[in-house]
Structures are given as C-alpha cells and as structure tokens.
C-alpha cells in the first residue's frame, strides 16, 4: 500500500458495501419479539421459504454511515455552488423544507386515512392547487404526476380523452425540434404520432411549418415556452390560434416556468395544459435524480378528464377526495402523487408571495443575460437577443481547436464548477446551455465567467489541456463506452464474476 498522490484531498476510493462486511456484524435493531415466534416453513410450507438473501452485506450501522458518507463526498451538490444546468433550474433547496416535510403530521400520514383524519394534508393540496392556478392562469390542477414527464403523459392523455369524448381520433402531436426528449417519448407512450416542427433562424417555432402541419389529425402541439433555447416564443398568440383553429389543443411544457413567474401566465397565452416541474421552479431537491413532482394545470374543457381522485372543498370548509369521476382518464400514480414534494413547493411559494415570485423571475433572467453579455465575446451565441432564464452557446469557436463542448464541461470541473447542460437542445450543435438561476451571487457569476473565459483561452493556447480534463477531480474522465459495451450492472462476489454468464443467463 502506498499513498496515491495528488487529486485525492480527503477523498478515498470506497469499495462496494458488499466488500466491507464481517460475519455476524449487525447494523439494525428490533424490539425483542413480544408475541410467539412463527416459523415461515410451518406457516407457508417450506418450499416457499428461501434459505437466505445471499449477497446482502453484514455491516454495523457505523460501517453503513461511513460508507455512504464517504461516497457522498464524491458528489457535487447545490450547497457547494453554481450548478448552471440549463433546463434543470438548479436553485438552492431551503433547509426549512426538509424540516417541514418531516413534520409527523405529514411524514407519517397514510394515504388511506379516513377523511376526518386527513384534513390537514387535503387542505394543503387544495391550497397549493389554488395557488398554482393563480400562477398559471389555468383553473384546475392535477397533483398526481410524480415528475414532469408523467405530467406530460397525463396532459396528453387528457387531451386524447377530450378528443375521444368528442368523437374525434386525432393521431398527431406536433413537437418543435428544440423540444426535450420526454415530449416525443410521451406522444409515443400514448400511442400517438410525434411530428417534428422545425425552428426558424430566430430559434422559435417556424410558423409556416406549423401551419402546414396543423390539421384534422392534430391532437396537440407540445410547446415549451420559454423554449429550450431560453427564448420566449414571441409569436405565441399566432401559434395558439393556428393550433386551436385546427381543433388541436396546446400542451405547454413548463420546465421553464421560473423565467415567467408573475410575468405572463400560460393560461393567458393559450395553453390548455401546462406541467409544472415542482422540483425545478419550486425547488424540491433533485436527490441525484428524483423524486420530482409534476402537477399539471388545465383548462375548463379538460377538467372532466383529470386523474382521480381530486381534492374537493366542501361547503362547510372541510375537504374530501372525490373518486367518482366517470370521465376521468384514470390514475397515473398509486396514490395521489408525491405529496411530500408538494409540502416543499408550497412552503417555497408561501415564503415568497407574489412580489417574491416576480423577483425570482427577474433575477433569474437578469443572471442569464449577464452571463450572455460577458461570455458572448468568446463563445458562439446563436441567438443574440435578450434571453430568458437561460442562455445557449455553442462550441463553434472552440471546435476549431479540436475542443468540444464536453471538453469545456470537464475542464470547468477543474475550476470547481459544475458544468452546464451539453448537447441539448439538439438544434444547436455543440450546445452549452447555461441556467444560473436567481439563487446565485454576483461573486459566483463572476467566478464562472472568469473560468469560462480562461477555458476559452486555454482552448486556443493549449487545447490538449482542455481535452484531457478533468485533471483535478478524484476520477479522471470515465469511460462510458466501455460501460455500455460490457455492461456490469450489479455487484457479484469475485468467485461468481467469471461464471457471470451462466448465472445471469445472458
């Protein structure tokens, strides 16, 4: 054993937990059994009882805590700094939220409690729906979707149910080419046909193409507004008319709601359904990938099709769940959605009020425009006009020196920053999609700018340095190709590794 030099700081390579244990160590406790023991073999028949759960580790609580603490150190979280992931709205997650979400009355509430025992949770959902209705300008909400993509599914299904109810079978969903992958995937999942609509040179929907595509078979347009280029669809009124005139509805992807809070409302610019990424705009923590919460706001005409049950306020001010919804599209969550994320989102909105929400939008947009101005000298800016909450550059200038967007991302790590979103939206080759959010300080913005400018210089003067990045992280660049070519997707004891193919049946 020798101390591996440099780049480790206090980081250590931590083996899989399965290699940490020792026979007979325990990491749990249970009360002594106060009822008679029951042998499963007697109760079920021995054929139904397994021997053991082989492979599970034998570790103490201390082992567990140290293992997960150590691996956690290999992560980069929001509390460390700027996380300018475009489209992701990585803003500060208030600590208060973790506290209130864990209030026993919320955390230990069971979804099938009698209504009399659920008034607090139902009231919170009802209040949140009313607030989101204000914010979106759409009268109704469904809180059931567990994330944005499930909101899309819900929205497109409601739209389909609406058309079916009217006796129409419209099969096409129009989707701008700048859209997020979930949009076409959602259309397919609903058994509909996604039709791609090109963007124009201004980065917005090509109205002629849209007109050409819209028609009898148009179920919906899935529009992201502000779009994924960080631009507001300034001809939104015409877009809405084209679709509505064709008998289609407008699904609006609300991933970028942060930019327009209190500035414009989807209900006012023609959206029929609008999903909210609670985990973006209203800052429920991303948790390394989830959970999210993707409520959809919807117009009057879609109301009958909402997933069931819905929260209803009774005349006497009490609340109940109404499951008697004959036209409902059904259910998309086992219970009512990610309630605990609703608590956090609710807390966030109530902390701000109307002025605060508008200030969020203004600061988020200001921060993005600040980056745009300071970086556009060095980085290709496909659309040089005021952006909304995010700005999309490309690696065009750096490509000349053989430096790609991904290299720039990796090099940013050496400067202590999380990289932006890359290679999305697809309409900008080599895209660098930067969303600072309103929770970032001017010092941090300036630090990021300096790092980006330094990298631009390095790309000219020493491209190899950038291509070889990251140099200072614990892991150098990880090999994704090998991972996909020979997938190792679970741990196995070394003795089993060679015979993997036998046991895995691959």
């Amino acid at each position, binding site marked *: 054993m020798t101390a591996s030099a440099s780049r480790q700081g206090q980081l250590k390579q931590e083996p899989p937990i399965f290699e940490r244990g020792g026979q007979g160590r325990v990491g749990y406790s249970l009360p002594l059994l106060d009822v008679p023991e029951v042998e499963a073999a007697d109760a079920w028949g021995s*054929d139904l009882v397994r021997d053991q759960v082989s492979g599970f580790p034998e570790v103490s609580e201390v082992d567990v805590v140290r293992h997960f603490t150590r691996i956690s150190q290999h992560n980069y979280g929001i509390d460390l700094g700027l996380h300018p992931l475009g489209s992701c709205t990585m803003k500060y997650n208030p600590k208060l939220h973790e506290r209130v979400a864990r209030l026993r009355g*919320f955390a230990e509430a069971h979804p099938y409690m009698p209504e009399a*025992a659920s008034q607090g949770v139902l009231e919170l959902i009802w209040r949140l729906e009313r607030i989101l209705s204000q914010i979106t300008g759409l009268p109704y909400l469904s809180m059931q979707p567990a*994330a944005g993509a499930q909101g899309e599914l819900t929205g497109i299904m409601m739209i389909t149910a609406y058309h079916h109810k009217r006796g129409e079978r419209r099969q096409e969903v129009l989707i701008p080419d700048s859209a997020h992958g979930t949009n076409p995937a959602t259309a397919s999942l609903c058994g509909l046909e996604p039709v791609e609509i090109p963007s124009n040179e201004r980065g917005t929907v090509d109205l002629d193409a849209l007109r050409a595509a819209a028609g009898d078979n148009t179920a919906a347009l899935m529009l992201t507004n502000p779009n994924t280029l960080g631009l507001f669809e300034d001809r939104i009124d015409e877009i809405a008319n084209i679709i509505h005139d064709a008998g289609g509805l407008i699904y609006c992807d609300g991933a970028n709601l942060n930019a327009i809070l209190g500035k414009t409302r989807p209900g006012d610019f023609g959206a029929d359904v609008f999903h909210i990424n609670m985990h973006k705009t209203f800052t429920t923590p991303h948790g390394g990938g989830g959970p999210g919460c993707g409520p959809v706001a919807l117009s009057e005409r879609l109301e009958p099709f909402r997933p069931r049950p819905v929260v209803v306020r009774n005349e006497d001010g009490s609340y109940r769940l109404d499951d008697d919804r004959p036209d409902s599209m059904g259910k998309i*969550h086992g219970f009512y959605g990610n309630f605990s994320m609703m608590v956090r989102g609710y807390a966030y909105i109530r902390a701000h009020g109307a002025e605060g929400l508008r*200030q969020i939008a203004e600061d988020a947009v200001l921060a993005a425009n600040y980056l745009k101005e300071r970086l556009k000298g060095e980085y290709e800016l496909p659309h040089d006009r005021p952006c909304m909450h995010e700005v999309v550059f490309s690696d065009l200038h750096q490509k000349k020196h053989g430096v790609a967007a991904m290299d720039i991302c990796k090099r940013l790590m050496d400067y202590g920053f999380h990289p932006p979103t890359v290679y999305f939206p697809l309409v900008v080759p080599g895209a660098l999609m930067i969303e600072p959010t309103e929770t970032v300080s001017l010092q941090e913005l300036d630090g990021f700018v300096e790092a980006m400018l330094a990298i631009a210089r390095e790309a000219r003067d020493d491209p190899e340095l950038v291509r070889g990045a990251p140099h200072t992280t614990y892991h150098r660049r990880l090999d994704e190709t090998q991972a996909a070519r020979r997938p190792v997707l679970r741990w196995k004891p070394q003795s089993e590794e060679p015979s993997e193919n036998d046991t895995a049946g691959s």
Partner: protein
Amino acid sequence: MGDTSPNAVAAARNDAGGGGRYLSLGPADREAMLSAVGVADIDALFAAIPAASRFEGMLGLEPAMSEIELLDHLEELAAGNAPHRRVSSFLGAGCNPHFVPSHVDALIQRQEFLTAYTPYQPELGQGTLQAIFEFQSLVCMLTGMDVCNASVYDGASAVAEAVLMTRRLARRGGRVLVSEGLHPAYTVVARTYARYIEDIQFDVLPLDEHGRTVVDQVDDDVIALVVQQPNFFGIVEDLRVIGERVAATGAKFVVNTTEPVAFGLAIPPAQAGADLVVGELQSFGNGMNFGGPLVGFMACRDGDKRNLPGRLAGRTADEEGKEGYVLTLSTREQHIRRARATSNICTNEALCALASCIHMCSLGRNGIVELARANLAKATYARQALAARGVPAVYDGPYFNELAVRVGGDAAKVVDRCLAHDVIPGVALGRFDASRADQLLVCVTEVHSKQAIDRMVDVLAEAVA
C-alpha cells in the same frame, strides 16, 4: 445605491417578499448587472413577451411569510392529520408502516446526496452512481433477477411499464392477465397507461378460497400475466405453480410486490420463473408521506435489459484505470432515443431509492430475515387474536404481515368508530370494490407492539359488535 439604512432594507426585504432570503442578488448587485447587460431596467429583458400575454399587476397570492410564520402555518396544517403513532394505525396496502432508522434519514439529508442532479457528469456524481449500483445489486439479490433499474415513480407505474415492456418484448399486442390480488390502484394505473394502446386487453384472474390466484390455461394470445407477492389481501402466493403454468407459453411472468420485506423469507421470484419482478420498495427506508414519494423498481432477466425503462448505473473505469460508475445503456432512454425510447421517464425517485438502499444494507443478510420474521409473527398473532374475537380472515391461505378480515358490516363505518378511540384498524376495502364493503385490510409490522395489537383487537372487536 439608494437608501441602505436598516429601515429601508427592512422595507425592501418585505417588498421582495420574505423569500428575499433565498435570493442571492441584492439591490446593488442588480444595478451593476443591469448596466453590464446594457439595459435601463429589467422590463427590457421581458420585451419578448407579447403585450397581450403579459401579466400586469400582482398574482393574487397571500403575502410572503417569514420562516417563523411559515413554520407555524405548516405545523398547524400538519396537526390537522392523524399520523401513525399519534393514532394507533394499522394501515398498509402498499404504503407500509415500517420503522426508518435515524441514520437513513440523516444520510439522505447530506446535501451531497439531497441536492445533486442526475449524475450525467459522472466525475461529479460518483456518490449517487455508486449508491445506484449498490441499490441495483441489492434488489437483484432480493428478487433473484439479473438486472434492476435505478427506480421508477412507484410500484403502480412499475407494473404499468412492465405491461408495456412485455408488449415490446412480444412485438405484438395481446391479452394481459392480471390477478385479482394485484393492488387495485395498480390495476387502474396499468390500465390507464395502456389506455390508448389499442392492442392490449386486460383480463382478471380471480382468487380461490385460499386467496390465491387461479391460473388455469394461459392462451396463446396472452402476452403477460401479472401476480402480486404477497398479494393485496396479504396472501403468500405459490409463485412456482403459476410460474410453471406460464413457462410453457410465450407469455411473460410479471411478479409485483408492494411488500418487499416478505422476501426476507419468501423465495425469490426468479426461482419461480419470473421474467420481470417489479413493485414498490417504500417499506425499506421511506416514510409514508401520504402516499408519495415512493420507490418503484423494475428488475428483469439479462437478455431483456435493453428493453427496460429507466436509468441504469454500470461499473467502468476512468482514464487511469480507477474503478468508477456511469449511467449506461442510455440508448433506451428518451433523452437519446426520443420517440423510440422504452419510456418517457426522466426524473425518477433516486433519493428514495438511496434510502431503500441504505436501509437494506443496514438490515443486511441477517436483519432482513429477522425483520421479516418479526412481521410474520406479529401479524400471525393479530390474525389469531382477531379470529378469537369474531373477526375472521377472509381467506384461509398463508399470510405474511397483512390480512383481509371480515367485519360483518360496513367496514368504513367500523373504521370511523375505531377512530373515535384513536385506532385506525385498517383500510376499508369498499373503496376499491363494493362487493368487499365488509372487509378490512389490516397491516401489522415490527412497529406494532403486542400491547398496541391487543388494543386494536379490543377496539375493533367492540366496534364490530
């Protein structure tokens, strides 16, 4: 720079909403930035919004709240419920009352885990990635399957996605046979997901008097058969028998679980020939939270992995050969494959899966068995005590930690009567099926002391009488 006296700042703070504390730009910062951007005021940056669509004025919301007020307000709302432990609750039905050790919740609150994004940049996400890899491994060990994804929304959507996956694997439509013992809400969700996939039809497999799924003949047009273990009414199914029936056919055998603790004792479904094992892991490490967030998972055979929805972490190495992890096989996913992805899922339930992972590790090889044994013993005790007091089980099959009982009247009313004594004895099943209006689903786990069970039995027997 304007007035920076404390009073002026207090006023500004209030204008900006109490939320000002979460904004990192101050008035001076904003001014400097506006001038760097070269616009006179902030409105210039919103000029792209057409006048007709612009929202003038203020949203009709209540005023901003300080942290003191907000905490009070939410504590008041929280107090409006009857959580487990304030009342003595025996509600389960797929949102199960298990104990979450304190270190599990402490670890998932580390900002490194809590606030991180999906680890698309693996050099900054090794913590999450290694945890997912370990999660996948644990679920494979528990179920006996080869591959498990990094989570989906919940057990219900896992079943729904499983049905769609069997449709893709079959490369044709057909019938999907769903056990009556599948969680009724899951059945609804699966039907909803498949609602506009016109070549999928659902049929229900009834239960026999033991509470076990009856599988007679599996016709050629069947693409999938979905059974739950233990089933919704608490019965441990004999998966081997069903597996044998399915094996002879082209149909895929899908096993769902809403109570994975049972697999501390029950044979892994892979051993019974399952092609897909899916379900809900909330029992490990996650609270109930009024039903969400949860932890759906999907595990399959190695040969089917390229059809699996959801993220997968895989082991690899960095440029210097150092072992590490990345998200892999992404061509299955929407951000690469778009319209032809295996699902539209993007955000999943990573943090809840992490909690499950930590709890499973802590239990370990011995704890998972001891926990399952405790659940079995407690529920058996409750079943016998209830039967002795005239509240019999609906089925005579073998139970794990949950059981449907007959209360001889409207079960919802019985629950209300019990609630008056601060006991919620179970879920009245009429909400799912009118023909079961006299049935109650009672869940008994390690959190229920004998004393609490005895009291529930007393209160319930009284309420029934």
